[in-house]
């Protein structure tokens, strides 16, 4: 999928070397239209979780960029992602959030599709079409590539995009922190409850940047910390690992993914957590113990918020969730948040986590409300003619990144900023926009797959 065009983002509107980024990339309708094409039709996007469609005929309506898509399991148990749009006149063929069906029928003229996407029913096929319509050419539009990774379903419209695992690169290890069972077994998570969906009046890149590693905004959550919504009765989450371990910001410049992480000392056990419930606390203590045994030194790594480029946010620990920032115009974002839990955790643990998760995240979550307020007003105050003339500053920590970071014998994949002493850095944020600018400037995946050009 080659796209012709000129370069104006890298070193222009996005000047990562100088640590300055134009407000235009957040508020311009023209740039928004361009990023739908250049970012959202080419990148891998999170669609849903296999546990949402366990049986043949199950479906979940999701989104990729502005497109409505259907994630479904066909009668042969194969998983598909289709554009939710009739091939005849474009009407949505599925207007429910989720369910089970043998067919997706367009309510406009009645074209009907099987769960494998094939056009199965055309009203008056013999009479009006004289049996001439080639139905095999008018199945639902299917994504170019689909990957199921540890239960999560990812897709891209671009047939020339690298495979999902290549797209992830070494970031895979950090994604695993959200998807593996807490005791370190591979996979083993499921979606807890439904998917929360809500609108925020801001550009999608505000939340994407925030989850990339903006720990500088911690001050705006001070009221939540004072309320003490955390699972041990103080703060908003268990934070003792901060006091004894290294606090890292990690990014992958050639992929555009980034995350935070904590690394515990080799001799220290994982601090106790979830102390509001003895059952839950004991569950996680046991899991942590098994995790250390199973994973060795890597078991000392605890995940923190991250962003898988472009619009999938990871929150691997407390609360454990995945969010997608769906673009809905330059000035609006629709957030979808999935909550994850160990599939085989006891019901009491799941229920405790459910209540904690919704206290923290989602439209009614106290922490997420703080964030939404910031993004909402920052966006609104950046739209004016005068405001647009003044770029944002992303200079924090510029030039202090460390490659091949190692601590107590554990090498950490990615380009690392140890922020234990410096408290904060914006290098993960710069990484996100560096990659975004590359997507906006590049004409094809030949240019974007920069890692393939390394000797």
């Amino acid at each position, binding site marked *: 999928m080659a796209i012709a065009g000129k370069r104006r983002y890298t070193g222009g509107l996005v000047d990562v070397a100088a640590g300055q980024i134009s407000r235009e990339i957040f508020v311009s309708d023209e740039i928004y239209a361009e990023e739908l094409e250049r970012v959202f039709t080419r990148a891998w996007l999170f669609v849903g979780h296999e546990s949402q469609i366990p049986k043949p005929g199950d479906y979940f309506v999701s989104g990729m960029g502005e497109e409505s898509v259907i994630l479904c399991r066909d009668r042969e148990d194969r998983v598909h992602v289709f554009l939710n749009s009739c091939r005849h006149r474009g009407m949505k063929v599925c207007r429910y959030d989720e369910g089970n*069906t*043998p*067919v997706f*029928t367009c*309510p406009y003229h*009645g074209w*009907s599709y099987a769960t494998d996407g094939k056009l*199965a*029913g055309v*009203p*008056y096929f013999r009479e009006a079409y004289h049996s001439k319509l080639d139905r095999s050419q008018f199945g639902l539009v299917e994504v170019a590539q689909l990957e199921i990774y540890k239960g999560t379903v990812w897709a891209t419209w671009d047939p020339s995009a690298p495979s999902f695992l290549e797209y992830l690169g070494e970031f895979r290890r950090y994604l695993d922190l959200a998807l593996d069972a807490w005791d370190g077994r591979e996979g083993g998570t499921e979606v807890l409850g439904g998917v929360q969906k809500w609108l925020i009046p801001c550009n999608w890149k505000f939340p994407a940047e925030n989850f990339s590693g903006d720990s500088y905004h911690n001050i705006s959550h001070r009221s939540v910390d004072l309320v003490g919504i955390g699972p041990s009765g103080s703060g908003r989450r268990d934070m003792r690992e901060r006091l004894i371990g290294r606090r890292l910001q990690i990014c992958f410049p050639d992929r555009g993914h980034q995350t935070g992480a904590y690394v515990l000392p080799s001799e220290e056990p994982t601090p106790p957590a979830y102390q509001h419930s003895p059952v839950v606390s004991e569950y996680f203590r046991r899991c942590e113990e098994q995790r250390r045994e199973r994973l060795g030194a890597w078991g000392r790594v605890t995940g923190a918020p991250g962003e898988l480029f472009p619009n999938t946010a990871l929150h691997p620990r407390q609360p454990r969730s995945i969010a997608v920032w769906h673009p809905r115009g330059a000035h609006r974002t629709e957030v979808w948040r999935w909550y994850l839990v160990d599939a085989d955790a006891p019901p009491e643990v799941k229920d405790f986590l459910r209540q904690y998760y919704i206290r923290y995240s989602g439209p009614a979550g106290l922490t997420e409300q703080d964030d939404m307020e910031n993004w909402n007003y920052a966006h609104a105050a950046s739209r004016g003619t005068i405001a647009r003339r003044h770029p944002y500053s992303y200079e924090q920590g510029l030039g202090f990144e460390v490659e091949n970071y190692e601590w107590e014998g554990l090498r950490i994949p990615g380009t690392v900023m140890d922020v234990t002493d410096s408290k904060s850095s914006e290098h993960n944020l710069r990484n996100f926009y560096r990659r975004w600018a590359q997507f906006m400037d590049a004409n094809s995946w030949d240019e974007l797959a920069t890692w393939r050009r390394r000797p």
Partner: protein
Amino acid sequence: MINVRTLEPGTRVALTDGSTVEIVSNPKDGIWVFARYLSSPRDTSLVGTEEMVFAQDMVEIQTTP
């Protein structure tokens, strides 16, 4: 007019072209049913085959299971 959503498997229905079909399954989308041809004056080769039948082609319920 037939409310297609309520048709149960086993129901026999007359179509506009004179055919008779028996409902095999109903996705309850209000537009289509899966049905087997019992008779078809238009095309006898259809008898015994299963097809999706369009709501506006159904004119009368003949028998219910």
